[in-house]
């Protein structure tokens, strides 16, 4: 007995020692258990223990050259994969550099978990070196946020953070962890909580909605980004096929609906297709699916779709009735509602909508894009269309500005999660880091970044990330030597008073890309396009095609700010 007791204590003690890990090791183990394979980040003082635990964790860390690049790469990764994107930064400036990326994910409902190191708990609130209240700073731009207050909380907080980021309407979640908690020793076997999926039922009123659809004379689907988020593209397409109704989409839904479908009328809104905007104004029933009546989509809200009743389906109850009254509200699970709607619709007597379909066809025919721009300079819309038709499953990650709208108007998208665009926040600098995140999420897909000479300079440092990891992203840089969208607005709405939009002192972008280790070339004539695009598509490895276009090229059509969507301006093609 006297011998047995010390033996047991020794065994117990050694087992405890074997099962004890640092908070940082526990943190990284939890990430791995939650399915994390890739993390984008940038190290620094307060997060060093977590970086110390990373190398043996099985997680691949991608070192971006700026924390904003990490946040936007995580965003792109999440958009393409449908999984939670993860980014990491240290306290203070590292954390504040994430903020734009988090706001971007928040406004486009992208599931991201951002991990920030924080100064040690005793130093919090003392203005310590690199201390900033990132919890407070990010409150308006995250879905939820945590400060971990004890090492024991790590598994619960991380499991909750990942759950919250992707459940319902997704969004970014911040996890701030003080340095001392990552150094503390703790038992290694703390369990991760799990969260059951809620039951999905169709909303009451689906039968009423189906009846309204059957009796409408000019029905139109208005499809938004919520379709891709809820992964209900198939159910959406089935309903569209079953009813035979024409459809328009928002910027974010391009790809959720195939843009070469014969009944697709185009993107609606400020730079939408004329046929789409006119059809909306003439329709008598809008079936809104996962869209939120954004001001860029509706134009003057009071005059938007003036003759239409509205059926509004959305996973987020708070969006229903926020800006436009819903005559029939179908909140909740989109899949359940779309499926039930299709079943009920089959059971109703449908009215012929042939005149409306003919009207829509006429609108599409009359307002088809014209690619015969005069002159020898490169006409960007035609080139982008040509590029997008060179591969069936090309992922296009675009930046923000005129080229973003040309991509939306003219590129062909046939598959969901292939059009990456900063729709809500309009973040210049989004395209390149999001594109590299997308390529890491789907290595087998061709990823092309479409950028502008203003946007590319916002995160130009990420060219080095492409080179460092040999991430095969192809970049098309449309260079008009100006901040083109601002220039267009100054031309149209500020009497041509061009203020701070001139970028004619741009660097030689091809030479710059080569310095970073990319292959690169420049073109400026229309007859060079075919050969240059062939080069881009058939040259493995990261590359950049610098395309000089007319500095006075504008995006048409354009609904002036505050006007109704039927009041589209049209101008000269360059």
């Amino acid at each position: 007995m006297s011998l047995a007791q010390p033996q047991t204590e020794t065994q117990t003690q050694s087992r405890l020692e074997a099962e004890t890990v640092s908070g940082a090791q526990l943190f990284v183990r939890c990430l791995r258990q939650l399915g994390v394979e890739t993390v984008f980040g940038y190290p620094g003082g307060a997060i060093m223990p977590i970086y110390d635990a990373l190398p043996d964790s099985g997680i691949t860390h991608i070192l971006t050259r700026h924390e904003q690049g990490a946040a936007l790469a995580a965003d792109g990764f999440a958009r393409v994969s449908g999984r939670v994107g993860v980014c990491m930064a240290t306290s203070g400036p590292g954390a504040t550099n994430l903020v734009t990326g988090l706001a971007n994910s928040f406004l486009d409902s992208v599931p991201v978990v951002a991990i920030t190191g924080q100064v040690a708990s005793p130093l919090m609130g003392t203005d310590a070196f690199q201390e900033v209240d990132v919890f407070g700073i990010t409150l308006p731009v995250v879905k939820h946020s945590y400060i971990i207050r004890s090492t024991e909380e790590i598994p619960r907080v991380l499991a909750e953070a990942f759950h919250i980021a992707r459940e319902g309407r997704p969004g970014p979640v911040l996890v701030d962890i003080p340095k001392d908690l990552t150094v503390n020793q703790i038992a290694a076997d703390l369990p991760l909580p799990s969260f059951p999926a809620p039951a999905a039922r169709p909303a009451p009123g689906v039968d009423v909605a189906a009846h309204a659809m059957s009796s409408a004379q000019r029905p139109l689907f208005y499809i938004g980004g919520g379709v891709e988020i809820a992964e209900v593209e198939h159910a959406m397409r089935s309903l569209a096929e079953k009813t035979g109704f024409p459809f328009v989409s928002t910027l974010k839904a391009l790809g959720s609906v195939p843009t070469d479908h014969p009944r697709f009328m185009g993107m609606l809104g400020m730079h939408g297709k004329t046929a789409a905007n006119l059809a909306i104004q003439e329709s008598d029933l809008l079936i809104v699916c996962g869209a939120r009546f954004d001001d860029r989509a509706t134009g003057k809200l009071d005059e938007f779709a003036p003759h239409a009743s509205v059926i509004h389906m959305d996973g987020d109850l708070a969006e229903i009735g926020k800006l436009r009254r819903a005559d029939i509200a179908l909140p909740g699970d989109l899949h359940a509602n779309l499926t039930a709607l299709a079943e009920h619709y089959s059971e109703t007597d449908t009215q012929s909508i042939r005149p409306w379909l003919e009207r829509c066809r006429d609108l599409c025919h009359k307002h088809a894009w014209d690619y015969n721009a005069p002159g020898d300079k490169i006409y960007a819309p035609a080139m982008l269309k040509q590029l997008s038709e060179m591969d069936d499953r090309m992922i296009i990650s675009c930046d923000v500005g005129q080229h973003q709208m040309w991509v939306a108007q003219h590129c062909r998208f046939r598959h969901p999660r292939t059009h990456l665009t900063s729709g809500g926040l309009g973040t210049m600098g989004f395209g390149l880091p999001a594109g590299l995140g997308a390529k890491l999420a789907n290595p087998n897909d061709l990823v092309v970044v479409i950028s502008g000479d203003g946007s590319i300079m916002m995160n130009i440092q990420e060219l080095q990330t492409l080179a460092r990891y040999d991430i095969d992203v192809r970049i098309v840089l449309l260079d008009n030597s100006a901040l083109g969208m601002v220039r267009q607005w100054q031309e149209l709405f500020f009497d041509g008073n061009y203020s701070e939009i001139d970028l004619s002192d741009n660097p030689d972008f091809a030479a710059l890309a080569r310095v970073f280790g990319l292959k690169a070339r420049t073109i400026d004539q229309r007859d060079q396009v075919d050969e240059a695009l062939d080069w881009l598509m058939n040259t493995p490895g990261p590359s950049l095609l610098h395309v000089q276009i007319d500095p006075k090229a504008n995006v048409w059509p354009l609904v002036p700010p505050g006007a109704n969507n039927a009041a589209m301006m049209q101008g000269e093609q360059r």
Partner: protein
Amino acid sequence: MSSHFEIRFDHSEGALLRCLGLIQRRGYGVTEMAMRADPDGPVLTAAIEANGRSVETLARQIERLHDVRRVRNHADALPQHSLADAMRAFSRFLPILSRRLQPATEMGR
């Protein structure tokens, strides 16, 4: 005209800040508020000026917050968490007394 909300939170860091920030950011105004600690979590009662916006939409946006358990929109009730609250509720019938009781007296609770 103000609407009166009762908002129940989980025990969660930053829940009040998150909620008040949302109300302000969405264009609504808080004209009175009081906080109390119930055993199952803090409770905020607030009089909210809608400034022409939809109160129902605000309630849904608050409900969407992860650490909000329940939102009730009381059309006619005033916050009544303290003696001062109760006196003010009663003083609606006594105009002079009501002017002496400033909402700021409860702000720190």
